[in-house]
């Protein structure tokens, strides 16, 4: 086993350590804080590259290596943890550290004027450490611990501007909603442990993702005819649905945009929300356990696929009718995560993961671009007040366009290859064509809403100065962002364009890498995928064209103008911009139920339990009255006589009593000293 496998923990430990050190620094040590965070991330990136090379140069069995150790003994059982290096981990490590590094650098510029700069970098570093911990964990328990730290830092960062009530509420919402999903994950974990007796993923044949455990899990059935593996898989999926913003646990993700934009880019677009997909990819052997020759899929995978499909459509629909530049991207993220779920459910790990990686780059790019736009427009987030930024911010515009084209899936850009692969695997799924059609509609909508956003933000003339209600900006007009922000944008634009070429049907290097094979160039594979590629490109161009037709032909000049859809179909538009009123539905059902239950409990406590206590106390008061009567008239008389003599002695002794408690304690200390010394001397003599 090589050095890097033994010391893989360093990748996660470095940012953790940096976060710890930053947390005890002074608030004004800004440069040092940022330097530490960026430095630790850069070191992690180097280590991640080393791990990647290690996996790249090994073959066959050696591509999956792990290092386990015993943590502590509990009863007769040893709890063992460990870390794992396989292609999945290696790819994710490189992606997270690279994107993370760029976003750390970008944050230096974005947060430059914030008073709590140091706190921000402390949380960011902590997040990076936990996220990398999720990636390298070889034990579901360790993964779960890091997973929860990731959730915590997400909470802290969404609520970073906690003086804003909406940010504080959004943070709380994100924390609670993801916790609901985590409950499922926790139950699944407990069940898995009860069934297999281990939570290690790989342990030389004894791990819970290895053949022995999987066969037993797939053999047994529980309620509703589910196999054990599917039931546990669905519970684990609850956790990843919470983290990845899948319907019905998606409500927190759009609200999470209250956080600083680098946070939205790092946590709520590129890495943390992808952790849900990563978790499913990690436990994929469990999800797909029991695939026999007759059936090509399992119940768990079907659940994943359908939830993903619903989310993909839902997110794309709602994104059409949003005004906030970040909210559009948030719903788009949701929708893309849905695509990853479809890919994972129908095509397996490599399909879902490929989209995850390409999406991480171009969505981080889009968010950082949005951040640059917001920065340039002095904090304005509403796209109705933007416009004409193409001339004011040329660098941002160029980078943003790359991201937008990749997201839409315009041919040759990275998003095209990964999304096409998902559509292809959904197309050949033998259970239903439903996910394929939903995915195709979603792709059309994606192209449409991104065109709408681009035209609103970049085309025409600026509407910034006109009647802005958020008018805290004294100087009008937008400006380009500083170098420290635009350079990461440009660096991110490169993979957003070219990354797709590592996973084309002709040269499926990425897919083979994940499966531990070597890739061959074969033009024959193109033939099978070619018709579908034509269809999906057509869909994208129809979407782009529709967007141009509605918004581009006649530009919007007036800030207060209605959206083109709004003037045609107001009801539909309001339904979409209200996100199908899911939030209101939850408020009317789940939240209200909780409140009612709480008030019922309070009533029970006050009147039933409290009544019992009061009755008992009354009885005791009665006793006490009888007692006090006896005391004053019988006992005291004799006592008073004795007191006279005692008080005489007391007044003599009271000279010692200064009333200082600590002096008394000191006497005790001296007495202890003398007593021990005497005792010991006596013993020696």
């Amino acid at each position, binding site marked *: 086993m090589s050095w890097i496998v033994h010391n893989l923990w360093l990748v996660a430990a470095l940012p953790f350590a940096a976060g710890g050190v930053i947390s005890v620094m002074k608030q004004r040590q800004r440069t040092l804080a940022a330097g530490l965070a960026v430095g630790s991330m850069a070191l992690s990136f180097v280590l991640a590259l080393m791990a990647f090379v290690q996996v790249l140069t090994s073959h066959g069995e050696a591509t999956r290596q792990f290092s386990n150790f015993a943590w502590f*003994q*509990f009863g007769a059982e040893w709890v063992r943890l460990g870390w794992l290096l396989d292609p999945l981990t290696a790819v994710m490590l490189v992606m997270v550290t690279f994107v993370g590094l760029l976003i750390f650098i970008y944050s230096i510029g974005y947060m430059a004027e914030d008073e709590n700069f140091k706190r921000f970098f402390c949380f960011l570093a902590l997040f990076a450490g936990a996220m990398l911990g999720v990636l390298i964990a070889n034990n579901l328990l360790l993964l779960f611990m890091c997973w929860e730290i990731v959730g915590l830092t997400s909470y802290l960062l969404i609520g970073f501007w906690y003086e804003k009530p909406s940010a504080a509420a959004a943070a709380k919402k994100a924390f609670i909603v993801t916790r609901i999903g985590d409950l499922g994950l926790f139950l699944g974990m407990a069940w898995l442990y009860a069934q297999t007796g281990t939570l290690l993923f790989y342990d030389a044949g004894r791990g819970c993702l290895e053949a022995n455990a999987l066969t037993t899990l797939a053999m047994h059935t529980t309620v509703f005819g589910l196999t054990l593996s599917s039931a546990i898989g669905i519970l684990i999926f609850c956790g990843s649905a919470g983290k990845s913003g899948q319907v019905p646990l998606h409500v927190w993700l759009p609200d999470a945009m209250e956080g600083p934009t680098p946070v939205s880019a790092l946590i709520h677009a590129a890495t943390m929300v992808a952790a849900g997909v990563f978790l499913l990819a990690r436990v994929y052997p469990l999800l797909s356990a029991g695939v026999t020759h007759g059936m090509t899929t399992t119940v768990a995978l079907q659940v994943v696929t359908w939830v993903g499909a619903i989310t993909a459509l839902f997110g794309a629909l709602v994104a059409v009718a949003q005004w906030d530049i970040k909210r559009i991207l948030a719903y788009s993220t949701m929708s893309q995560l849905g695509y990853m779920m479809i890919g994972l459910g129908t095509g397996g790990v490599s399909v879902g993961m490929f989209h995850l990686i390409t999406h991480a780059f171009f969505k981080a790019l889009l968010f950082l671009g949005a951040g640059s736009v917001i920065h340039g427009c002095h904090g304005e987030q509403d796209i109705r007040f933007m416009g004409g930024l193409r001339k004011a911010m040329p660098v941002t515009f160029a980078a943003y366009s790359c991201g937008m084209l990749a997201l839409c899936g315009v041919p040759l850009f990275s998003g095209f290859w990964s999304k096409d692969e998902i559509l292809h695997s959904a197309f050949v799924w033998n259970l239903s064509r439903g996910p394929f059609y939903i995915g195709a509609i979603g792709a059309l909508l994606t192209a449409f809403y991104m065109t709408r956003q681009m035209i609103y933000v970049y085309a025409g003339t600026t509407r910034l100065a006109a009647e802005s209600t958020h008018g805290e900006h004294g100087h009008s007009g937008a400006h380009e962002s500083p170098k420290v922000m635009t350079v990461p944008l440009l660096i991110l634009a490169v993979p957003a364009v070219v990354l797709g070429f590592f996973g084309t049907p002709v040269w499926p290097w990425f897919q083979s890498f994940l499966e531990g094979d070597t890739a061959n160039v074969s033009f024959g594979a193109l033939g099978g995928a070619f018709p579908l590629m034509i269809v999906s490109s057509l869909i994208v161009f129809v979407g782009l064209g529709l967007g141009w037709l509605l918004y581009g032909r006649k530009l919007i000049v007036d800030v207060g103008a209605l959206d083109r859809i709004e003037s045609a179909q107001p009801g539909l538009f309001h339904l979409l911009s209200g996100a199908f009123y899911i939030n209101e539905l939850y408020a009317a059902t789940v939240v209200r139920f909780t409140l009612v239950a709480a008030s019922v409990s309070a009533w029970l406590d006050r009147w039933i339990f409290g009544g019992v206590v009061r009755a008992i106390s009354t009885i005791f008061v009665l006793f006490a009255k009888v007692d006090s009567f006896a005391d004053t008239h019988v006992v005291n008389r004799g006592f008073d006589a004795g007191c006279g003599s005692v008080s005489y002695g007391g007044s003599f002794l009271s000279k010692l009593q200064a009333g200082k408690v600590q*002096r008394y304690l000191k006497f005790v*200390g*001296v007495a202890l000293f003398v007593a*021990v010394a005497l005792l*010991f001397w006596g013993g020696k003599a």
Partner: protein
Amino acid sequence: MSLFFLITAAIAIGGTLAAMTRRNPIHCILSLALGLVGVAGVYLALGAQFVGFTQILVYVGAVAILATFALMMTQGHIVSALIEPRRAFSRSSVSGFVTAAGVFSVLGWAAQSYRPLTPSTQQAPAAGAKEVGVALMHTYVLPLEVIGVLLTAALIGAVVIALPSEEERS
């Protein structure tokens, strides 16, 4: 001498030292929690798992939080009042340090003059939740009940003492 013992002892000593020397009481309580984790580690090093985890639950969890609450309810409204002024060594504090040093010297001397002892059994006897539970329910059932009564009394007593009296409330 095991490395684990060294680390936990270092945490315990460092944490408690900081708890007794920092000027900001909040820092004191936080360091105390750290030091008590170290003590729990020492228990684990001695093989007393249940006591170690109880230590973490009771001390690190409950007592530290209780102390924080007391601090907040007494001086919490004035942050500057929390931090004790830097002061020269007064006579009483010097005599306090001397007393503590004296106690340490005799205790340390007593401890050191034992000949190095090794445990009678190499493997620590099991002292997990199960064994402790069995012992509590058989041999030590009476003390357990007494402790229960004591804790109830302490709970009620604490509430009664902390409650504002009638004239203060009005």
